[in-house]
């Protein structure tokens, strides 16, 4: 039984990682320091539907792989940390308690945490390892827009997927 559960966990994380890569690479708006994309939609969807650990691994690994494939390899470790933590925090905040869905206030708080994690995380880590404070600061508005839009779309997509494909609840761990 444990073996079956392990196989399901690996399958869930692998497919969700691929989903994050595709969402990151399909829609790309070039900016001065890289590109803006839909990865936050996938990350928020995973965090709302699959729980903290799936969100952490799939979000971190998916965005890092997308950076590697796209030729932005130097951003891969930063993306892994920032988006991994983003997925983990959102999932922990909106975690279901029994049969009750998360309240609107908690969802709003999760949205704020999502925006803060992405914008401040990229600002801190890229100013520390890749560029400088002034260059990294210029990217904050783009990251706020990307994560804000991503969170709202992710929320909508999560509830739509739960209605369209109810067995998704049994895949969460």
């Amino acid at each position, binding site marked *: 039984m*444990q*073996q*079956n559960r*392990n*196989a*399901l966990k*690996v*399958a*869930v*994380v*692998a*497919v969700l*990682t*691929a*989903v994050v*890569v*595709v*969402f990151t*690479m*399909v829609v790309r708006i*070039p*900016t*001065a*320091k*890289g590109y803006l994309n*839909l990865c936050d*939609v996938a990350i928020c*969807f995973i965090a709302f539907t699959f729980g903290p650990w799936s969100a952490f*691994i799939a979000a971190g*690994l*998916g965005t890092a*792989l997308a950076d*590697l*494939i*796209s*030729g*932005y*390899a*130097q951003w*891969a470790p930063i993306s892994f940390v920032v988006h991994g933590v983003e997925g983990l925090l959102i999932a922990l905040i909106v975690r279901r308690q029994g049969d009750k869905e998360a309240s609107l206030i908690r969802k709003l708080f999760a949205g704020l945490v999502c925006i803060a994690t992405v914008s401040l995380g990229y600002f801190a880590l890229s100013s520390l*390892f*890749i*560029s*400088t404070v*002034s*260059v990294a600061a*210029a990217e904050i508005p783009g990251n706020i827009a990307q994560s804000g*839009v991503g969170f*709202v*779309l992710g929320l*909508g*997509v999560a509830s*739509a*997927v739960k209605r*369209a*494909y109810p067995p*998704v609840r049994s*895949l969460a761990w």
Partner: protein
Amino acid sequence: MTTSTFVAGKGWLYRFDPRAKILLMLLLCVWFFLPVHLVGLYCAVALIVFTGGLNTGFSHVWKIFRSILPMLLFMVLFMPFNVRTGRPLFSVGSVTIVTEEGLMQAARLAGRFIGISYVCTLLFATTIMNEVMLALRWYRLPYKAGLVVTLAFTYIPFIADSFSQIAESHRLREADREQGRKFLQRLKDLVPTLTSALVVALRSIPNLAMSLEMRGFGLQNRRSQYHNLGSYRHPFTHFLLSVIIPVVLWLLCKA
């Protein structure tokens, strides 16, 4: 969607042991943050770019440069105006626009950025992903983590194709509404496409889990390996070179 980062070639970097290559990449990334002369920094960057050109071809080297060029320009144009310390080079009245310190910092930042970009990209351009995973497993990456990455790479083209087809069919259904839509409406209209693509991806999970079980995933027996890194000869020499190269560069270029 192209998911392969490998560029076919026969240079010495392709014959370099992937485990040693990962070590060399990490040490060179650290090297770029050490206090080195600006001239030394650019000599090291030129050496790395030239080595990359000899191994993967100069067209690939140019392709990497094109991908990092927008950010590089942004850094070089933006950075000097944000540093106020140092000898003024260009002033308008009493306002200092550019200082020597600002220019030096911009040059150092650009050199470091180019160097790290090439070092990271060359590892994946000269090593197939399967061997990168084997090398990471040699560094004690858990089997499950390696399997997740390998499976994710298998599923990326399938999910990308599904996404493109679904997006196209949604676009065809809404062709008459395409013009004059506002940004928010466009975002809202994206939800059905994303939902359909996600449902298609999620439906493949039970089948994948079942096929993993059928292949004996999770059993206690040690798994046999079809691929290994045994074809790389002289791994000790390669590891030694991976340590010697950054150390020699450091001794030659330290500030």
